[in-house]
């Protein structure tokens, strides 16, 4: 395939998948014609004049201006789509993409100033910049700082601020340095230090032992931990103020001069000595043969530990605390197998998953098999490690109750970095869960979540609305709500907090014998929620059948969410028959950067067609090797050697039916799930009527899928056609019990 083939396909795919088709340039050309600008020469030889400078694309500008005015960012007017908006200055080499309501930074750094739009870098989001802030994909290294400061035209003070590593905050890929004012990072306000910060005490040099001793005498807080066989205990806090003073005095008194001949490092014990101004002095006390006592000290600004001679009285003074620290419980954090075994002792896991910021998932897991799997996910072999302290958004909070009554707590940030606490003390920092663990945990939480995380908070329903045209509406602010309620009832609207909620309204229009609607169930899909509604009908009797004219309605207050919300109505008219779900209008289109809410892998492993007999639609399930053989024989796949399946993880589902010849449009897709069930849909161009299936153009097709072993019922819905090419509804057709 040559370059032009590549380009052609790429541009066609871009048109179709991005939704941005070929533009209509007529108006713009007419404008240029009217302006009398001469078009360039188009002969193969070099042009006499450069092609005319592009005149503004007024139509594209007008659209952009309309959008931006709605969004309240009129400063974006008169820009080409890939030009950075006001308030954003890019350093050389930065790559970005300007989207409808934010700028997405792909690489490099930018300077954000007052009025800058939202900046997104991976999962990091910077907004409401007030002042000046540098943001980028990572903290710039030493050599890059000066050129970066030059490109961004920073002042001397700003340059110094940017060079201070303590001024940088990271959230996943995003690194942020607030030079002045403040910015909001993933919902948290980050303020710059004062432009002219008060002078901070300088750390004494290692040679200045007099100042160092004086500093040690000012210690106000002490924590310590002790390692045995390579494993550290949890941190012990010295809570007795008198003991803190005594230990501080011991350090100050017994610390000698810098060692002339430093011995090897031994940090079996580690002390963190906290000063009033927040500085932390790190120290380790040990001995070596032939040496009275040694103490490694490191102040915040020192690049490394420095070793000092010290009197043996120091170790003697610390004996009690060191013994107490040895008795602190330990987590075998360096032994992954042991950690997983410890975590597998959990009998209960209570979680809050805030990945979807509008609607956190909460729940409790008690299933032993699920908890065992969770242990592996929380301490995988490919765990990473980071020394960077992150101020990022927490997405998972997990409390594990072990079988001995003790507890462990995980708080996991959006980049995977987590802290693990035990008995209230932080035991592990800086470990990173890989993306595969994060995703699998999310899937686990989704399945176990109490769907009150996204559920109807309040509802108003009845049979007599003043709205007599059938419609659905979504309201997300006070103004819209007041208008809608006034239209519906002509009275004051009930209170709704639109900072945390939205309202979805359904009006049935002018009809008979309906009391309104209720939500039968809510399904959660990858990027959307589906509300499934039932209409409440009632019967009437009378000499002429006597139906009662109604205008049924229902309004549901729901948690505010970034996901799309779809609605379906059960239009099955036959009592006790399986529901037939008819899609209503979808509302609340998702943001393009929303995280998927659920993950459900359907692996279409086998597909085939042909053979006799033509068959009505059938579903078959295999849960073990014997059933697998049976399924393949039944379908007559022609496979002599069947692929191996991990029956602990999967089951096989097969569907076979008559369909138009040569079709390969036969797919099982996830419609959504909740605590009770998973709903899958079989998309098929299959026989719409009995006679279709017998027609010469139809043949038998079959397909086999592997789906996750169910921990709840799986319902398969199939399309219903009413003489149409597109389904008019989805019928619950087959249920696979857990």
């Amino acid at each position: 395939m040559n370059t032009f083939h590549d380009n052609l396909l790429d541009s066609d795919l871009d048109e179709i998948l991005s939704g941005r088709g070929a533009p209509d340039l007529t108006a713009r050309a007419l404008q240029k014609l009217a302006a009398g600008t001469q078009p360039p020469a188009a002969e193969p030889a070099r042009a006499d004049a450069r092609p005319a400078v592009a005149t503004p694309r007024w139509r594209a500008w007008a659209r952009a201006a309309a959008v931006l005015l709605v969004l309240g960012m009129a400063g974006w007017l008169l820009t080409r789509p890939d030009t950075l908006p006001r308030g954003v200055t890019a350093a050389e080499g930065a790559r970005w993409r300007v989207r409808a309501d934010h700028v997405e930074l792909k690489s490099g750094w930018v300077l954000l100033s007052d009025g800058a739009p939202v900046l997104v870098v991976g999962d990091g989001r910077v907004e409401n910049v007030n002042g000046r802030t540098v943001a980028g994909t990572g903290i710039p290294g030493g050599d890059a700082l000066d050129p970066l400061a030059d490109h961004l035209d920073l002042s001397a003070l700003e340059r110094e601020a940017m060079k201070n590593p303590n001024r940088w905050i990271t959230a996943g890929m995003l690194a942020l340095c607030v030079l002045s004012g403040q910015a909001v990072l993933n919902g948290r306000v980050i303020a710059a230090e004062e432009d002219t910060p008060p002078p901070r005490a300088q750390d004494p040099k290692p040679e200045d032992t007099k100042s160092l001793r004086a500093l040690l005498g000012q210690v106000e807080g002490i924590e310590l931990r002790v390692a045995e066989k390579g494993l550290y205990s949890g941190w012990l806090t010295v809570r007795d103020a008198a003991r803190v003073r005594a230990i501080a005095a011991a350090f100050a008194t017994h610390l000698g001069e810098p060692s002339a001949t430093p011995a090897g490092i031994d940090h079996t014990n580690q002390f963190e000595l906290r000063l009033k101004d927040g500085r932390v002095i790190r120290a380790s006390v040990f001995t070596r043969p032939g040496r009275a006592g040694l103490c490694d000290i490191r102040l915040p600004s020192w690049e490394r530990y420095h070793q000092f001679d010290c009197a043996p009285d120091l170790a003697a003074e610390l004996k009690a605390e060191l013994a107490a620290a040895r008795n602190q419980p330990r987590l075998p954090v360096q032994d992954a197998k042991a950690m997983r075994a410890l975590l597998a002792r959990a009998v209960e896991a209570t979680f809050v998953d805030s990945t979807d910021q509008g609607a956190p998932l909460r729940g409790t897991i008690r299933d032993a098999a699920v908890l065992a799997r969770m242990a592996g996910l929380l301490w995988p072999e490919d765990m990473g490690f980071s020394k960077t302290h992150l101020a990022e958004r927490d997405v998972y909070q997990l409390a594990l109750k072990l079988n001995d009554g003790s507890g462990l707590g995980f708080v996991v940030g959006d980049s995977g970095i987590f802290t693990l606490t035990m008995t209230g003390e932080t035991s592990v920092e800086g470990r990173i869960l890989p993306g595969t663990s994060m995703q699998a945990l999310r899937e686990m939480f989704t399945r176990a979540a109490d769907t009150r995380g996204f559920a109807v908070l309040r509802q108003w329903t009845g049979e007599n609305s003043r709205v007599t045209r059938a419609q659905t509406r979504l309201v997300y602010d006070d103004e819209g709500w007041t208008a809608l309620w006034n239209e519906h009832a002509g009275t004051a609207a009930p209170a709704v907090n639109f900072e945390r909620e939205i309202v979805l309204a359904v009006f049935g229009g002018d009809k008979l014998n309906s009391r309104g609607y209720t939500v039968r169930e809510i399904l959660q899909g990858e990027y959307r929620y589906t509300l499934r509604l039932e209409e409440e009908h009632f019967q009437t009797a009378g000499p002429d059948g006597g139906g009662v004219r109604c205008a049924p309605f229902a309004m549901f207050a729901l948690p505010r969410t970034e996901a799309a919300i779809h609605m379906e109505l059960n239009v099955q008219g036959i009592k006790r028959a399986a529901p037939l779900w008819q899609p209503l209008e979808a509302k609340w289109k998702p943001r393009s950067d929303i995280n998927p809410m659920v993950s459900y892998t359907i692996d279409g492993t086998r597909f085939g067609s042909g053979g006799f007999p033509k068959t009505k639609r059938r579903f078959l399930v295999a849960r073990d090797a014997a059933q697998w053989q049976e399924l393949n024989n039944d379908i007559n796949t022609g496979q002599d050697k069947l692929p191996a399946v991990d029956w602990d993880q999967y089951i096989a589902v097969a569907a076979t039916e008559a369909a138009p010849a040569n079709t390969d449009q036969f797919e099982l897709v996830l419609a959504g799930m909740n605590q009770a069930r998973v709903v899958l849909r079989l998309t098929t161009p299959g026989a719409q009527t009995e006679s279709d299936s017998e027609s010469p153009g139809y043949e038998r097709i079959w397909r086999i899928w592997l789906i996750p072993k169910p921990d709840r019922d799986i319902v398969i819905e199939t399309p219903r056609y009413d003489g149409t090419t597109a389904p008019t509804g989805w019928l619950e057709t087959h249920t696979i019990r857990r």
Partner: protein
Amino acid sequence: MRAVTTREEQLVEWMRRHQTDVWRFLRMLGCDRALADDLTQDVFLYVLDHPVADFGPAATAAYLRKTARNLYLNWLRDHRRELPLGLEAQSEAAWAELTPGDGSDQRLAALRRCLDKLADRQRRALDLRYRDGLSDAETAQAMQATPDAIKGLLKRTREQLRQCVQQQVKP
């Protein structure tokens, strides 16, 4: 048929018939959207001042493509970009191979049908790359695969689509 009497009317009529194909042709040559917009406009303004006898839609379309190609070459020269070898012959051949006589709309319709035949994973990779604008590495991360795996998947998928479209648009 009513004779076109004014330059504006003529411009509008030509653009109505041909601007989409010209724009897509420029995209095939390697123009990004903005440049394709600019050059498409310039093509029709140039042709307005340098009309040729009408030998039918196919000939007019070919002439417009030639004009577009030359304007693009001029732009490359002006911006000191490397000129692709065999631009004329290869670009015409590629266009003709994948664009039926009815124009590029048919080609896109064929591509839509071919997209419907893709497996979920293939389609998801394409959505992430083209709809969401993710890089290979970001797509790999989203799909929990390696960048190499994603590159391979996309390469195979493109080839599959190209063959599918070619089959569908063959006369």
